[in-house]
């Protein structure tokens, strides 16, 4: 019968189809397994530290007393980075999308992307060898003139290896992330909105304030959140730049520490319960960044659905 040859599959091609689709499916599932494994192995290895008697943990007062200052230190460094990076990144994104000459724009975007290509350890080396040294006079000035603010309380660190320096280095590192995402969103602003604003006599800034920024607000928020995720987990810059210590309110003294840097500095020599403690710290960091990233992704997907941009 001729009809069966159309519906019946046979030969090597049939097997190939099965094998190939099974392979792709397996690869996809492997990713889920790996991510599940990340959580599982971290929990297993961290478990001894979570149940150990408090006096065995570093500091002698239990895991939560140990991790608490680190969480605060991580947040301080990330917030400094975002406060510095966000306005500059939005400015750069606007410059590339709406101000720069059209021919230059993509080239300039590539230059900013180069910032993301430089390895983090090189940023750390730059921060400790160049930035910390150059910026310490400014810290002295802040301590002398703004010392009444708790965050600028003196005496300023003589080496400049402070959490503020680390925050500035982190700001440079998250800048390209926030810039490239905001730029994408700004470029998606409906052309008709922009032209309508200009036709009504708006200046370029008024056009941006009335059409581009309102359209891009969810995108900017999620870009900042993704930048936050990066800043929270960034290790080497902080490990090299910050001269760590106990939690202090002053940003221009040495002190404070972040989770990631604490792990990097102590893990290579750690053994026994210390390893578990550090892996537990990593688990805490994982949970925090996971939460931040999921919120950011959630905003992006929700925005995609009703923006009609594409």
């Amino acid at each position, binding site marked *: 019968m001729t009809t069966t040859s159309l519906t019946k599959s046979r030969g090597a091609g049939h097997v190939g189809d099965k094998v190939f*689709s099974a392979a792709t499916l397996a690869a996809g599932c492997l990713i889920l397994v790996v991510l599940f494994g990340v959580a599982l192995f971290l929990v297993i290895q961290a478990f001894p530290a979570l149940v150990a008697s408090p006096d065995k943990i570093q500091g002698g007062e239990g895991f939560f007393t140990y991790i608490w200052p680190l969480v605060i230190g991580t947040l301080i460094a990330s917030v400094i980075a975002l406060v510095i990076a966000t306005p500059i990144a939005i400015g750069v994104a606007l410059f590339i999308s709406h101000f720069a000459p059209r021919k230059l724009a993509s080239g300039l975007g590539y230059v900013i992307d180069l910032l993301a290509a430089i390895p983090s350890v090189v940023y750390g080396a730059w921060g400790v060898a160049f930035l910390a040294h150059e910026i310490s006079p400014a810290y002295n000035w802040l301590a002398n003139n703004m010392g009444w603010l708790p965050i600028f309380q003196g005496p300023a660190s003589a080496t400049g290896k402070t959490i503020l320096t680390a925050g500035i280095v982190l700001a440079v590192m998250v800048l390209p992330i926030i810039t490239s995402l905001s730029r994408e969103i700004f470029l998606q602003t409906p052309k008709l909105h922009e032209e309508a604003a200009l036709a009504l006599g708006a200046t370029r800034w008024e056009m941006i304030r009335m059409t581009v920024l309102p359209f891009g607000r969810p995108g900017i928020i999620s870009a900042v959140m993704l930048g936050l995720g990066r800043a929270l987990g960034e290790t080497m810059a902080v490990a090299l730049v910050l001269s760590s210590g106990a939690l202090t309110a002053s940003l221009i003294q040495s002190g404070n520490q972040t989770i990631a840097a604490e792990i990097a500095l102590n893990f290579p020599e750690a053994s026994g319960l210390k390893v578990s403690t550090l892996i537990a710290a990593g688990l805490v960091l994982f949970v925090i960044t996971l939460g931040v990233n999921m919120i950011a992704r959630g905003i992006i997907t929700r925005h995609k659905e009703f923006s009609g941009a594409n």
Partner: protein
Amino acid sequence: MTSTLTPVRKRSALTKGQLPKAAPYIVLAVALVLGAAILALIGFNAFGWAIVSAILFAAGLVGWSLVVEGARKAKDKLATCLVVGAFLAALLPLFSVIWTVLVNGLPGLLDPGFLTTSMNGVTGAFDNKTVEEGAPLLGGIYHALMGTLLITVLATIISVPVGLLTAIYLVEYGEDRALARAITFFVDVMTGIPSIVAGLFAAAAFFAVVGPGTKTGAVAAVALSVLMIPVVVRSSEEMLKIVPNELREAAYALGVRKWRTILKVVLPTAISGIASGITLAIARVIGETAPILVTAGFATTINTNVFSGWMASLPTFIYTQILNPTSPSNPDPSSQRAWGAALVLIILVMLLNLGARLIARMFAPKTGR
């Protein structure tokens, strides 16, 4: 009486109340001169001159515009100044980093034997001699370079098949199923895993399976794969999605099987984008420090076996040479080696980035006719 009508050139009513075209240049010149004068009073330096002049320029242009053109135009000028200023401010650290690495790294790189010797047997005593008696600087980055290349190659071998097959599943077989949506979501989540957590995961997994304290190049490669796979999936997925559906349908119409269609039609069409995405992913993980630090340790000898023993890599080499100099009393030789290694690392990353662009251009599908 002869009246000659001399044409009077008046400014058009349309351009009345506007600054002359040369206004920015005039203000810039004034700002530069004033800036130099102010800086001369408090001690001149080029960086301060640029900052003061920029502030004077913005203030002058906005003020002039406020007087002549009114508040709305002045606000527009202010916004333009701020936006351009933000861009220039973003370029500062880029140039500063590249300049610092070049100036500090070139002496180290030009040192004979820097690329071909390891740190085996190089102790603080040799560095003290270098500083005090001018003996030649010993030690190099050969072991770290080998380690970086081996770990990265192994990570690429693990990530590319997994990442590419996953991307194919998502685009060709997924069809918006729950599993495909879950994979997309978790790949996004994986993109955000901090690099040190990826390192801890690999370490924890090998501690649990092989034995406590397992630190080899292979563990580091697994850690880097966790960071690399999501990047490969995302970029390959984007590239596969833009392959026109007509190509697939034409192949199906000729009776070609789905897997043959994917291998012979879809992948060759998208290969340029996929290859450049993979190159960018390699460029991203080659500079990762934290995961290697917690998984491969740091060695001073050449180790080309990724499955046993600690392994050095360029980023960890930089890190340890800066943080724990070989000779604590004379850190200069160590920092010279660190900067030399940083220069090599940056050159590698830039070459990979450049390579990605070239690949994208070279293998781009021919779109003649």
